[in-house]
């Protein structure tokens, strides 16, 4: 691949515009990590199963390894770096911390963004729904117990 095959894309990530030149085959995940320097989005499988690369695109949780950067012009993209408000953790982050919802922390950004997207649209999910949604992503450390607990607590806190 040469410079000629690259195309310019404007990505709006966490409210900031990033003008990047990428090959058409470049995934959104790679563009976020390598071109925008936002390495909080992790790659666990690069084939859409593990969900570690989950971000929000126009509010919807998406697997950024399954999207191309060139598809995403004009979208409102949100990554884990956007969750906290300065030093104040987002209620979902706070709940993961208090409930030991992470061990190695590699899958965590994906679970946080999945939960953030879901709870924004479904603030009061029942247990069965929540289990179904959280089964979108893989975690190898926690056995999911404390992730479920954390998201349940975060939902309560966010409902106020």
């Amino acid at each position: 691949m040469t410079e000629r095959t690259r195309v310019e894309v404007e990505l709006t990530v966490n409210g900031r515009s990033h003008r990047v030149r990428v090959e058409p085959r470049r995934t959104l995940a790679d563009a976020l990590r390598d071109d925008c320097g936002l390495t909080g989005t992790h790659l666990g499988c690069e084939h859409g199963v593990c969900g570690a690369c989950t971000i929000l695109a126009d509010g919807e949780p998406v697997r950024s390894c399954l999207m191309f950067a060139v598809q995403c012009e004009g979208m409102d993209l949100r990554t884990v770096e956007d969750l906290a408000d300065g030093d104040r953790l987002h209620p979902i982050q706070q709940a993961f911390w208090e409930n030991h919802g992470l061990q190695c922390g590699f899958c965590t950004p994906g679970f946080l963004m999945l939960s953030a997207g879901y709870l924004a649209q479904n603030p009061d999910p029942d247990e069965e729904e929540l289990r179904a949604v959280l089964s979108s992503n893989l975690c190898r450390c926690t056995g999911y117990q404390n992730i479920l607990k954390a998201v349940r607590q975060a939902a309560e806190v966010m409902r106020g």
Partner: protein
Amino acid sequence: MIPWIGQPLPRFEDPPLLTGEGRFVADLTRDASFLRFVRSPVAHGRIVSIEAPGRITAFTADDLRQVRPIRPLLHRPDFHPIEQPVLASGKVRFVGEPVAVVVARTPEEAEDAAEQVFVEIEPQDPVVSAPDALRPGAPTVHDHLEDNVVVDARFETEGVDEVFAGAAVVVEFDLRSQRQNALPLEARGSVASYDPRSGRTTLTASVQSPHVIRTILADLLGIPESDLRVVVPDVGGAFGQKFCLAPEDVVTAWVARRLRTTVSWVEDRRENLMSSFHSRDHHYRVRGAFDRDARLLAVDADLLCNIGAYSCYPVTCGVEPLMALAEFPGPYDFRTYRVRSRGITTNTCPMAPYRGVSRPVITLAMERLMDLAAVRFGIEPAEIRRGNLVSEFPYSSATGLVYDEGSYVESLDRAVEEIGLEDFRDRQAAARSEGRYLGVGISVFSERTGYGTSAFAARSMDVTPGYETVDLAMDPSGNVEVRLGASPHGQGLETTLAQLIGDELGVEPARVRVVHSDTDRTPYGWGTFASRSLVIAGGAARLASDRLRAKLAAIASAELEAAPEDIVIRAGRATVAGTDAGIDVSELARLAYHSSHRLAGGMDPGLTATATYDPAGTFSNACHVAAVEVDPETGGVRVDRFVVVEDAGRLINPMIVDGQLHGGVTQGIAGALYEEIRYDSEGNILTTSLMDFLPPTLAEVPTIEVHHLETISDATITGAKGLGEGGTIGAPAAIINAVADALRPLGVEVAEVPATPSRLRRLVSESERIPA
């Protein structure tokens, strides 16, 4: 919150990981060129030629002639050393073996370049399974060996045949455990950076044992160890897969030195499934002899472990067969034991320790033995166990392992009570009359943890791990820095050590900084594996804290004009017991550095202490009980309840303990029901994506109900026992026993894990008793 020990303190590790500030290897490649390995598409064959277009920077074994092969050693006559060149040399021995490496500006270009390297291989017949590799006339994986047996260990007490001949009941069965991949969510990787100014190379790698990796790298590359620094950044899970040396890391360091630059290797998931270490590929034949009171008298076992194409450094491929041999008896008291345990080399990906090592499989074997015997005797599985569990301590096993105090019978009783066994049997009977198949399964086990040099030396390992050293310093402001050779990566050791040290030195845990995973900054140590870090590094931290505390007390005693033994250090103050007289610990710290003239004669300035801890080891124990429902139409298993009664001694941080158990049990459920690395008969790996290799999601994992017993033994100085592997060790047996219990009316035997839907459906369809 004093004492800090026992508090569910949220982890100090978490904030950066929650905000995207974690730094994993793949996040550190900004200044690096990218490596891509060209891997063998053939399981067994002779390399005829390797050709790369001239515009591609590529290296092969010919270029790396000065690099020594990896040659892990055991000093025992029943072990035959095999060696692994870091890039295949002359022969390839498994699909996915690195044959060449290319270097490019971007990962994409590297991947494109690797595809242009042409490797001609003359295929030879492969051997894929351990039984195949044992057949007379089977191809040999390593030409210098007469056959494919790399380890052939035997152990036999007296009178085995006599006990079997006189037994009231002999239970005999086969067991097959398929192969697993530890599957850390972050695959392996490293960045190697050569600094022309100092001549040093820094390898930043996702590994569990930075010091050991530095030593072997220096050995293989033939350079002074001081020319190397190994740094471990955040690690996205390891579970054993990142403990042994990756040949790719050696190549990465070599290329950085050769090109005098920075290069990185980031493994993708396909490579990880194909070429990262595998585990658990065992075939067992087991016999147990019982007297007429259902008392287990003897066990006779023949164990085959498929160790793959090469031996892993430093533990060697003996790790699975030798642990299986020594620890097979588990929590049961019997004196007569014969075992043959072999490690067999095949044309498959090499094996290395994975959470639990052999114990998930040997526990499954012993627990199947107990259940099969219980059926023969017509008694409850809990009852036969009660009559056979060790209950007096210290207990010395048939193989000479010494078990410290535990709660084997108590954990069983508690778990059976929690699951409500009698009610369950009623529900099970009612369900069966409706054509539904419920089952309950018990697993009682011992988990040997926190073992030091003596335990590893018993395996005759050339490289004998065991101790940990901790350097502790209180700075002039009263903050504490602790540096250790262990290398935590998700276990929360930065928090638990701070809790331990905080209590000892009377400081808040937040003022204790734990430094690890950098060979330039930490004392030599073995790393984080084998459920050892909190026991061993924690023990060393405790010893070092004792020394520092004694010095603080000595300084305080002079200042307060009291005897050192009357000084109490607590909550940031040193006080004279029974009085109001006291002085802040931070004031003592400042004094130790800045007013050393006031220190008593002979006392060095400053506040530092170093300690090493090297215990013989301790046994945690637990009982797991699973309740399942099996759908005989689909072969699907739903786990309805999973109860854990765990005894790991003193709990330093119960929240972290429960997290370890949750994750461990989930990996055990994975091994019992879902995860399986498969090869075809030609040695082609068939499971190279997460659509073929199936780790469980939350949809497959029930609520894990954890209960604790706390038996404090004096086998460790903190009272804490290890527990990192227990969940994974115990869960498969509980699940499989439950599945077997559910399907018992059909007269089928579950002899293979994972018990996937297709396997269970086949069993059901072959049953002569068609389900209602």
